[in-house]
């Protein structure tokens, strides 16, 4: 069951990320907006992250047949997704995310070499949770300013992804419980909510890859 849900989640994540990434890129090519460029990077990373994990599961299913996906592939996929979540949060003007001191900057990398891939997964999931929760709150705050109903859907989507990420991380404490399955179902719901307002954007007469003369 988990295996099937994991496959569905990663495929949906890949497709939703790809669709929003392409749309952002079209917007960037048409307007030159740096915000849309950041969104392109964000959703391309999210899409790639899901794709890496999905590929891992497909390879396991058809080639290695070991019964569980390679831990390092899962960790790499989650790390790539985290980069995407960072760019969503960064678009909401995180200006002091990294410590200013160069000493701290060098030290912050150090723990990554001292922990196993399982521990790295914990770190990436918890950071992703924080970034997603921040993005969800900022998006909801923007709704109160401009009353754009699409923002509610995106905010709820990011919120559900954050909750799913938290439950996925917490399921390490109770490995045999339904927490992990629940986290995946919640994340699928979050991705669908994220896509709903974006799917309504009309792209008719939109020129792709053509600079204004």
């Amino acid at each position: 069951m988990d295996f099937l849900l994991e496959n569905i989640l990663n495929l949906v994540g890949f497709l939703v990320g790809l669709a929003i990434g392409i749309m952002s890129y079209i917007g960037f090519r048409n307007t030159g907006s740096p915000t849309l460029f950041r969104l392109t990077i964000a959703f391309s990373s999210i899409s790639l992250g899901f794709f890496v994990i999905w590929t891992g599961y497909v390879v396991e299913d058809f080639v290695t047949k070991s019964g569980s996906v390679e831990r390092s592939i899962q960790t790499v996929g989650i790390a790539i997704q985290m980069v995407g979540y960072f760019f969503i949060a960064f678009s909401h003007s995180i200006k002091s995310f990294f410590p200013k001191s160069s000493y701290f900057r060098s030290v912050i990398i150090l723990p990554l070499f001292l922990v196993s891939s399982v521990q790295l997964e914990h770190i990436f999931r918890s950071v992703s949770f924080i970034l997603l929760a921040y993005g969800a709150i900022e998006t909801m705050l923007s709704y109160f300013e401009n009353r754009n109903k699409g923002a509610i859907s995106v905010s709820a989507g990011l919120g559900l992804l954050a909750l799913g990420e938290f439950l996925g991380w917490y399921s390490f404490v109770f490995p045999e419980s339904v927490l992990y399955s629940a986290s995946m179902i919640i994340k699928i719901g979050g991705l669908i909510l994220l896509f709903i307002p974006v799917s309504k954007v009309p792209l008719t007469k939109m020129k792709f890859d053509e600079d204004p003369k």
Partner: protein
Amino acid sequence: MAEYRTHMKIIGDILATTRDDLQDEDGASVTYLIRKANISHSRISTILKTLVTQGLLEKTDNRGSNRYKISGSGREFLQAYYTFTNFADNFGLVI
């Protein structure tokens, strides 16, 4: 409190004025655009020059004064601007 406008929003406002709110057929004067787009003379001069170079605005000479009209490319850009403003709004962002 005055609303903060991004560079993109100012360009959108200028193009929208030259499309929807023209003084006459010859186009809008710089003074008119300054008033409508609420921007300083030095800043609008640079932006207008860029927009003309990019082909988004057409500059005409009307009895010694420059007039600006939106071009076909400008209309397409403005349509894209509105579409993707709405797109970014969904994420709580400003383009």
